[in-house]
């Protein structure tokens, strides 16, 4: 029998995961996250409060609910043009996510969504932290720290005044929307 050099033996998952592990090791070696990464690739405790969300996700682009809402509604409109009954076309996961992000979007129009991300990105936040703040829009510094404890514990601790300014700017977008 002829053996094709094809992807026969390569379980897609098996290959992918080992590849990812290699990537994250190479990256983290430089910034002192080596031990954490090693244990994350195994089944170690994740904890979003300490920003332990695994390297794939830490480096990935996070989306705020309002951004997801724009993306999903756009996709839904596209489907609508192709079929009469788009709700039949989409998965339950899509439907539930769309309902959820519509309900919990802080900013409705695309301009304010962009502004919100622009303001938050001035403060050297991790993607995940940025999106938690954008989603929950805390009103006080104390509340912001309770929502995202890692902003105070990651070496580059933000000053209270800076946090206050950030929250203020955010609430202004909302006011002028």
């Amino acid at each position, binding site marked *: 029998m002829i053996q094709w050099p094809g992807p026969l033996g390569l379980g897609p998952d098996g290959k992918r995961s080992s590849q990812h592990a290699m990537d994250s090791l190479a990256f983290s070696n430089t910034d002192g996250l080596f031990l954490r990464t090693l244990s994350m690739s195994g089944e170690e405790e994740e904890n979003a409060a300490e920003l*332990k969300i695994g390297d794939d*996700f830490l480096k990935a682009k996070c989306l705020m609910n309002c951004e997801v809402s724009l993306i999903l509604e756009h*996709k839904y409109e596209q489907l609508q043009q192709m079929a009469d009954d788009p709700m039949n076309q989409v*998965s339950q996961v899509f439907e539930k996510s769309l309902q959820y992000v519509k309900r919990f979007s802080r900013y409705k129009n695309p301009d304010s969504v962009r502004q919100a991300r622009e303001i938050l990105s001035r403060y050297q936040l991790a993607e*995940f932290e940025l999106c*938690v703040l954008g*989603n929950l829009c805390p009103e006080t510094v104390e*509340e912001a720290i309770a929502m995202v404890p890692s902003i105070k514990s990651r070496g580059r601790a933000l000053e209270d005044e800076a946090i206050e300014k950030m929250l203020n700017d955010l609430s202004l977008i909302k006011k002028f929307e």
Partner: protein
Amino acid sequence: MFFHIVLERNMQLHPRHFGRDLREKLVSKLMKDVEGTCSGRHGFVVAITGIENVGKGLIRDGTGFVTFPVKYQCVVFRPFKGEILEAVVTMVNKMGFFAEAGPVQIFVSNHLIPDDMEFQSGDMPNYTTSDGSVKIQKESEVRLKIIGTRVDATEIFCIGTIKDDFLGVISDPGAAS
């Protein structure tokens, strides 16, 4: 939290689809296959937003099927332990309540509801403070913290708490009407 990430999948295509619109066939099959699925590692795949690259196809021995490695961008929803998010209450009983955040179900046991809230049975079961000022019932919006996740092949299930600072009811449907 929602993320925008790049995933890879080996797609098998029947030879009858080979032709001008091979690529479209591949993409529509990919959407059908992965949208709405869930894995413990990447969470729920909500929507595919773009194709990064379709690799070289390899003919499989004996069948004539061809396998294409496809890299695609997608929106995923992945809950993390320690994450704080908003959710809608879907069911209340004496054990606690269930809430939904997009595609994921979260259970909050009555041990993790503040002690001053009592369960009230009736046709609209709810948890209420002794002075009646705060009420959790179906359709209430709550802010909660995820403290545990259970992953099986096709679903992620979470345990949450509202017994912490700045957590609890955001709005209750009874007050609005």
